[in-house]
């Protein structure tokens, strides 16, 4: 019974996604926009960093997503956040509007500014390789 409940909870926590893109397509688009190839090491460093430019309650991506994006994170509200790594959560990076919405919100929360196209391609490339 309990596994069933957990499965249902996981389903409920995964947003319905339009599925208009793939991680690879997003990486290609952002890299082209940036005019440079993606670098997973740079993505990892940014993800794990505490840059101090954002809001005090969210000093780093890891505040909510943890330092292991193959596992679930937790919002400050206590709600579970599905893993970011596509290997652990195939729904990730398959909906352009969803990706843009959350980069928009979270880069501002953590960095106090928008992420650049290069930073987005770096982060997705790192997450896709996990």
């Amino acid at each position, binding site marked *: 019974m309990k596994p069933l409940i957990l499965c249902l909870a996981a389903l409920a926590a995964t947003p319905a996604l339009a599925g208009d893109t793939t991680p690879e397509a997003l990486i290609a688009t952002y890299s082209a926009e940036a005019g440079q190839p993606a670098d997973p090491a740079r993505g990892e460093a940014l993800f794990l960093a505490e840059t101090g430019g954002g809001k005090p309650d969210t000093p780093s991506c890891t505040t909510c997503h943890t330092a292991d994006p193959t596992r679930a994170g937790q919002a400050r*509200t*206590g709600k579970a956040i599905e893993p970011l790594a596509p290997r652990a959560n195939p729904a990730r990076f398959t909906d352009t509007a969803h990706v843009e919405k959350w980069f928009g919100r979270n880069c501002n929360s953590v960095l106090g500014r928008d992420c650049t196209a290069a930073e987005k391609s770096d982060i997705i490339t790192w997450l896709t390789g996990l």
Partner: protein
Amino acid sequence: MRKFLILIAFATPALADSDYIAPVTDPLTQAECSACHMAYPPSLLPAESWHKIMTSLSDHFGEDASLPEADAAAIEAYLTGQTRPAAQMRADPETPPLRITELPWFKREHEGEVSRRALEKAGSMANCTACHRGAERGYFEDD
């Protein structure tokens, strides 16, 4: 005395007897709010509170929860239409409450009810469903 009783009635949300508080039924409101937390019942806050919350999403309790303007406006219209003005809820319309957890009835209801372990497990007092399993359907009975 009678006036006092009426005030008490307004100060406590909905029906304390059945522990039922009408849940969000609007699909957009449900989807957007519940991305990060349960979509809290509109009647828990005065209309002025929802207005302030929905027009300050770029700093939503310490996080950026921005939405496209049209979505924010639609959600605000829904929420404010499902509750009462501050003046009818013993709140100041000029400085409406923003945190449900700071409302006097909320504190009263939860005082001594939540162990440190339970709070740790829930992650936050914002996580109603950790203890009230039926909260998303409007049922806030103790579990």
